[in-house]
């Protein structure tokens, strides 16, 4: 398995810039997930790594080789497509070996690789079937099998689970994680689903409008989002945001006020009076209580009960809603006043431009 290095990659279509100065370094054997909303450029980036689209500028190195001008087949990559892209007029076995024939792999070797991949993916009984006779999950496995037999340096996955139903998605996710461990493969995986990102990735790359917002381990992104976008994107349900302002600064500490929460006391560092801030707290970090570094209050509007945990939607003073997780059988009732507290380390503060304030 090999590493992947992307340097200052740019892609423009006419006047629109789809990828803006993207640089990324991926270690051998790492499972990296590119995640972000539609149009953020993640699929474009993947296609460029694959060589299906050319970049406007920038370099891509795979396993130490500069691959900018190489065709997809020469880069040592294999790709699993969103719609599986299986050749409808070939059976499963042919689908998997077709590409190998043209890259000069001898018949005996082809046979061995197919048998190996079929065993790994439990496809042995399906080798003679045609794609139209397979279920969605089976087709997905064949698509993965087709990638495995290429024995590539890097695996590329383009939203492979979005065409599957919910239950299948979970089991296939587990399958992919298992394969990653078994093959010790370097994987670049694109999805818009942050749950997939959190569960599968060694590192997550959050993208937005052609830029990298943050790159890091899943829990790092969860506990220490670098900006407003990442904070709101990672975690479900999403983080609550409170608009706030610096009221006064003295003695190295700043007083921050805003609608829906009692005054917050922060270490001052670079804050000035009048600075606009956004304060973020995750629903799961809000607990019932009356005193703490951060206290939010409001009237319960709606409670969604999911069993052990429930989500209370609370309307605060500025008429906006925030969500708090409540555990246990006792749940608040709509109309009730609630006071919720959060620990200091669970309060995230972002400045006017959306960047984290340390």
């Amino acid at each position: 398995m090999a590493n992947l290095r992307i340097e200052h990659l740019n892609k423009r279509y006419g006047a629109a810039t789809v990828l803006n100065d993207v640089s990324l370094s991926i270690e051998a054997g790492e499972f990296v997930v590119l995640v972000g909303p539609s149009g953020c450029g993640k699929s474009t980036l993947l296609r460029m790594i694959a060589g299906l689209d050319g970049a406007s500028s920038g370099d891509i190195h795979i396993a130490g080789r500069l691959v900018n001008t190489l065709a997809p087949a020469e880069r040592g990559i294999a790709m699993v497509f969103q719609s599986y892209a299986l050749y409808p007029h070939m059976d499963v076995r042919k689908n998997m070996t077709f590409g190998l024939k043209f890259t000069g792999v001898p018949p005996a070797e082809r046979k061995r690789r197919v048998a190996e991949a079929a065993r790994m993916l439990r496809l042995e009984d399906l080798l003679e079937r045609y794609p139209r006779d397979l279920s969605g999950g089976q087709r997905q496995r064949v698509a993965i099998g087709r990638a495995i037999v290429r024995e590539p340096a890097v695996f590329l996955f383009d939203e492979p689970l979005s065409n599957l139903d919910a239950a299948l998605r979970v089991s296939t996710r587990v399958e992919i994680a298992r394969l990653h461990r078994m093959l010790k493969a370097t994987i670049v995986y694109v999805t818009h689903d942050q749950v997939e990102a959190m569960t599968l990735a060694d590192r997550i790359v959050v993208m937005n409008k052609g830029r990298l917002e943050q790159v890091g381990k899943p829990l790092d992104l969860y506990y220490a989002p670098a900006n407003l976008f990442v904070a709101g994107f990672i975690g479900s349900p999403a983080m609550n945001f409170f608009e706030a302002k610096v009221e006064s600064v003295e003695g190295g500490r700043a007083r921050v006020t805003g609608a829906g929460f009692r005054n917050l006391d922060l270490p001052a560092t670079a804050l000035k009076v009048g600075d606009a801030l956004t304060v973020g707290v995750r629903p799961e970090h809000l607990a019932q209580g009356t005193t703490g570094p951060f206290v939010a209050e409001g009237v319960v509007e709606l409670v969604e009960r999911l069993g052990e945990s429930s989500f209370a939607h609370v309307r605060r003073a500025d008429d906006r809603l925030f969500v708090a997780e409540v555990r246990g059988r006792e749940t608040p009732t709509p109309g009730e006043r609630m006071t919720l507290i959060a620990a200091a380390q669970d309060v995230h503060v972002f400045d006017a431009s959306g960047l984290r304030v340390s």
Partner: protein
Amino acid sequence: MPEPVSQIVAQMPRGKRAGLLLLFLGPAVAIYSLFSIYPLIATMALSTYTSDPSGARHFVGLANFETLLGNSLWSKPFWNALGNNLIFFTVHMCVQNPIGIALAGLLSLPGLKLKGLYRTVMFLPTMLSVVIVGFSWNLILSPLWGVASGALKAVGLGSLFAPWLGLESSALVTLSLISVWQFVGIPMMLIYAALLNIPEELIDAARVDGLGHFRIFFHIKLPLILPTISLISVLTFVANFNAFDLIYSVKGALAGPNFSTDILGTFFYRTFFGNQLQLGNPTMGAAVATVMFFIILVGVCLYLFLVQRRIRRYAL
């Protein structure tokens, strides 16, 4: 998948339904049956009669067909026309369809500039009347004008030139090529549409698999457009065996030189209407038409039963 039939309609009273059907379907079915189906059947019926000089008709069963196929006065020109028609068809299958497929393949390359312009221009000849096409080419190839001979001389192939349209040996093939020139647009457009239908991801997968563009065309695209190709083949067959206009407008009803460009359509016309060499013979004309109908029917049935069943439409 067609939409399920509306429940309201399903529960309509019979009389009302019948009335609606009559109103909506009646005119179309009437005109179609009267002017399309009935004449065919009437012609086939007519072919079993002959007319004598007084104009009276006598039922003779299949005698007309025996004459057509057995009597050398009739059978020689008939088989000649049939053979020529086969040559006409073969030229189309070997030249028109491959060129159409190749052009469609080029046009469907992603990112091709000026695609619309090429398509518009290349489809233009198909829009024109066959009369125009035939005559224009007649002029261009004419030794009197010298355009064709001049063009060949300019590339050093002047010796190749001959009055192809006037020579017995080359007239039919030349006319076939002119027809190909005119109608390439149709297979081109149909195959282009079919190629567009192939999902982009399939092509991407093939590129990742290591296939170059030619291989992608032959191993991936071609098998998937085979249904369209076979449809085009049968349409070509029907059109070619029904052809008439081009030959008539370039060579007239006699389809010279020396009947070398005579195909079934012109043979039918001559038999039916007559010309300076013979009187019109409606009953024999009907017989010729019936034979033509069965030839076309055989071709279509072969297509429907052999090809349609074997070739699968892959769900893409």
